[in-house]
Every structure is written in C-alpha cells, then in structure tokens.
C-alpha cells in the first residue's frame, strides 16, 4: 500500500450551479483504502461520485484523482451505479454484460472477442459468480446481480472502485457476504474502494475510513473518529448520540427532531 493519496479534494464544492449541496470540503484518500460514504438521502453522496467520474464539475475548489482532474472514461475507475435498466425480461446472459465493462465503449461489433470473454470469466471467478456466466440477467436475484455488476466494474482491473449503494435491497446475510467480498478485493488487489451505504454495521469492522456527507458539509476520518456523538452533533448542528450494542454495532440517534436523519436509524 503506497502512501500517495489517490483522491485529493481541496475546498471542494459540489451540487448544481447556484445551489451547492456541500462546500468547503477537504479530504484525501490513500491507495488501498476501503471507505464508506455515509449520510442521509439527498445529502450529495452520488454528486461526489459523479464528480470523481468526470460527469459533474466542481462548483468551487479542486479535486484530483491519480494526480489528474477527473475525466470521463477513466479506465482506472470501476463503477457500479445504483440503477440499472435490467428487468425480468432482459434475456441477455451475465457474461455478455461483464464483457461490456471492458470493451463496451469501443466501436465495432467485437465479434470473436475470445480474449474479452476470458477476461469476463476471470472477473466472474473473482466475485464467485462463474456459475452465473450463462444465466440471463433477468432471472438473477438482487444479490446475484450485484456480484455481476461488481465483476463488470472489476474486469478492467481498476485502481479505484466507486460503488453506489451495492448493499441496498440485500437481506442481512447477503449484505455481510457482499461486504466481505468487496473487502477481499480491496485487500488482495490493493484497490481503493468508495462505497455509498445506508447501514454502516456490516462494513464497520472492514473499513479504513468514513466519509460522512450531511448538512452541506463532508467530514472524513476513521470510523471511530467520525462515528461518535461529538463529531456528528457538530456536523448536523443538532444533538446526535451514537449508541453501541454488545457486538460493537452502532445506532445513530438524533436527540431532537431530525426528520432528514430518521431513515438512518432503522437498523
């Protein structure tokens, strides 16, 4: 693990022109770190991802990724978005989708493509989904699809993974399994992973760092540094208490009225 930061944000502001969702953001992420991006809905977590992908421009300040300004089509980034236009009628097999993660942005038919198919199988093997290769996407479960999407993101051997709520819609058991899978990829390949999540608990023991987006600001640090009553109270500007159960799982409780935060409590 090198100590050079892969992402550096300086006085960064993001959102829509004339309407910053957050500003004054400073943080850096090192190569090989597993980072959770937390915060209530609409706080601007996906905005941060779109900025890293070069799909949204900073409203102010600067952000660099691998020492350069973010640019669309960066082959060093693997991305799993929150939404996919796949439904039960999609007959295409998983292997074909994974392969597009490698060469879907190139012109031509790519017929033959033995090398690409081999890489796709390899990526499926990494996520333990090789038996799903020839199943159609429409008949896969939510958990199986997430593994396929992860393989699609990993096929280009990225240095940075951006995962937008991959744990949503998974039951508790699968949530834990998937968190372990990402952790394994991060540790074995030295990949940096940013993962947007709502429930911190399945990730808590695996994370190096937390990015907390709320109330127009972003706070970063180790889970212990950020996920405590003092820091979150300061961030939200209202009393917040972080409670721990006997297994070390945490519950974040707003002491006063905090409607934008309520959804965060039900775990």
């Amino acid at each position, binding site marked *: 693990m090198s100590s050079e930061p892969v992402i550096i944000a300086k006085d960064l502001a993001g959102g829509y022109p004339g309407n910053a969702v957050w500003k004054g953001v400073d943080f850096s992420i090192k190569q090989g770190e597993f980072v959770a991006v937390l915060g209530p809905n609409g706080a601007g977590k996906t905005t941060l991802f779109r900025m890293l*992908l070069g*799909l949204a421009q900073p409203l102010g300040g600067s952000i660099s990724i691998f020492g350069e300004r973010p640019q*669309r*089509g960066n082959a060093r*980034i693997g*991305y*799993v*978005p929150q*939404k*996919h*236009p*796949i439904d039960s*009628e*999609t*007959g*295409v*097999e998983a292997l*074909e*989708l994974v392969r*597009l*993660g490698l*060469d*879907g*942005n*190139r*012109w*031509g*038919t*790519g*017929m033959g493509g033995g090398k690409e198919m081999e890489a796709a199988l390899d990526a499926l093997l990494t996520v333990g989904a090789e038996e799903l290769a*020839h199943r*159609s*996407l429409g008949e896969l479960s939510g958990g199986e699809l997430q593994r396929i*999407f992860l393989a*699609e*993101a990993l096929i280009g051997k990225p240095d940075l993974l951006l995962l937008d709520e991959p744990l949503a819609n998974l039951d508790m058991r699968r949530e834990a399994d998937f968190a372990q899978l990402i952790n394994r990829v991060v540790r074995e390949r030295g990949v940096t992973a940013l993962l947007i999540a709502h429930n911190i608990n399945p990730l808590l023991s695996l994370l190096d760092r937390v990015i907390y987006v709320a109330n127009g600001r972003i706070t970063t640090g180790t889970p212990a540094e950020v996920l405590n009553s003092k820091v979150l109270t300061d961030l939200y500007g209202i009393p917040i208490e972080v409670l721990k159960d006997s297994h070390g799982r945490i519950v974040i409780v707003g002491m006063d009225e905090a409607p934008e935060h309520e959804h965060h409590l039900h775990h």
Partner: protein
Amino acid sequence: MSTSFSFNLVSDLQSMLQYDFMRHAFEAGTIVAIIAGIIGYFIVLRRSAFAAHALSHIGFAGAAGAVLFGINPIIGLLVFTSGGGFAMAMLGRKAANRDVQIGIVLAFMLGLGVLFISLYSGYATEAYSLLFGEILGISSGDVLVTLVAALVLIVAVGIVYRPLLFTSLDEDVAEAKGVSIFWIGVVFMLLIAVATSIAVQVVGVLLIFALMVTPAAVAQRVARRPAQGIVISVAVALLATWFGLFISFYLPYPVSFFITAATFAAYLVVRGVQGAKVRWVKA
C-alpha cells in the same frame, strides 16, 4: 406455367418468381426482414417499441405529404421519421418512454396523413397501401433504394454495436466509461427511422410491429447472447415474410395478414413452450 399450388415447393417458387412483381416482392421482403430483425433486436432490448411504432405513424404523414406533392413516398417517410426520431432523441431515452405525449403526437400525425391523402385524390388506395403495406406493388427502383438503405443500416449498426448494447444494458456505466448516451440515442433513433421507412413498404405503418418487434421479442426470449438473438430475430422475420409472400400467391388475401399471423404464431409458440417448461420444472 402453372400458378396453382403443388406440393413441389421448388417448382412453386420457380413459377411465382417468373413474375416481376413477385421477384421484387421477394427481394424487398428479404432485405426488409433482415433489417427489421437486426434493428428490432435493439428496439426490444431498449424497450423502445412504442417509439418505433410512433415513428412509423409520423412517417405516414410524411409519405402522404410526399404523394400529395408528387414526390416518391419513401422520401417523405425518410424525412419525417428522421425528423421525428431526432426530436425524440433530443428528449432523451427516459422521455422517449413517455407514452402519453408520444401517443398524442402520433395521433395528430396520423390525422395529418389522412388530410394529405384526401387532398391528393379522395381515393383510399394510397392510404391503404401506406397503412397496410403494398409489397406486391414494389418496383425495381424501390428494391434498389431499399437495398442501399439496408446496406447503410448494416454498416452503421456494425459501427455502433458495442456502445449501443452497452447503453441499452447499463446506461450509467456506459456514460461513466465515456460513451455519449446522447449521440448513441440520436444514432439509434435515426436507425429506427430508416428501418421503419423501408419496412413500411412491406407491412405498412400500422403493422410495423409485426416485423420490427415480434420477431425480436421471440429472439429475446430464446437467445442468451446478443449475436444469437439478432440471428434468431432475423430468421423469424425472414421466414414470416417468405411464408406470407408464398401463401398470398395462391390465396386472395393480403400478404400483410400472413406475415403478421406468422410472427404472432412464432411468439405464441415460444411463450407456450417456455410456459410449459416452467410448469414442468416446477412440477
């Protein structure tokens, strides 16, 4: 020369191909079926069937207008469907799924077409052939236009194949990987526009679904790989077209009916077989 049906299909085919109109019909029908099968695969994959349907109706107004001004209807079709396709692409893929708005434009265009037709002659024959197809009236010039348009389409699909597939299956990732969602959308709508324009000759604007959507829907249910899907989609469209032309040579009913009936039957059979399989597996 015999024009009655025998069970020797080769000699049947030989005798019907002695007629120019049948030869042209087979030529144009074959080209159109191939194109409809290919473009249709992506239409079904992208859930753009209604947009394709709407484009054919917009094309009807263009074709009727062209007839009114003494221009080749295919020109009117191409201009209107391309314009409509471009406008839909400007609205974006999500907007292209707004069926109410598209339906409103579609109805107006159909009405406009009816006006043009009535201004032209008051006869319904032109309207009838535009609405339901007139494959037996295709000239050798039409076949040439169809062939050229088809070759352009095949080359274009060959070029945009992977980004088109990528945006169809995983738009956000494709965008992040540098694919222009907007331009792929524009190109795709133009591909539908041209394909629709040439397919109208065979099945007409009202029955365009039968060639552009039904065979692809069959393929989507059967095939796991896109290349396979396209081959199956083309095969179903081709067999249905040939079947329709063959039968209609002996029976006094419209070719369009036999083509639509054949693709519909193919769809029912696939659904039925798959349904039975599911029940059998579960039992």
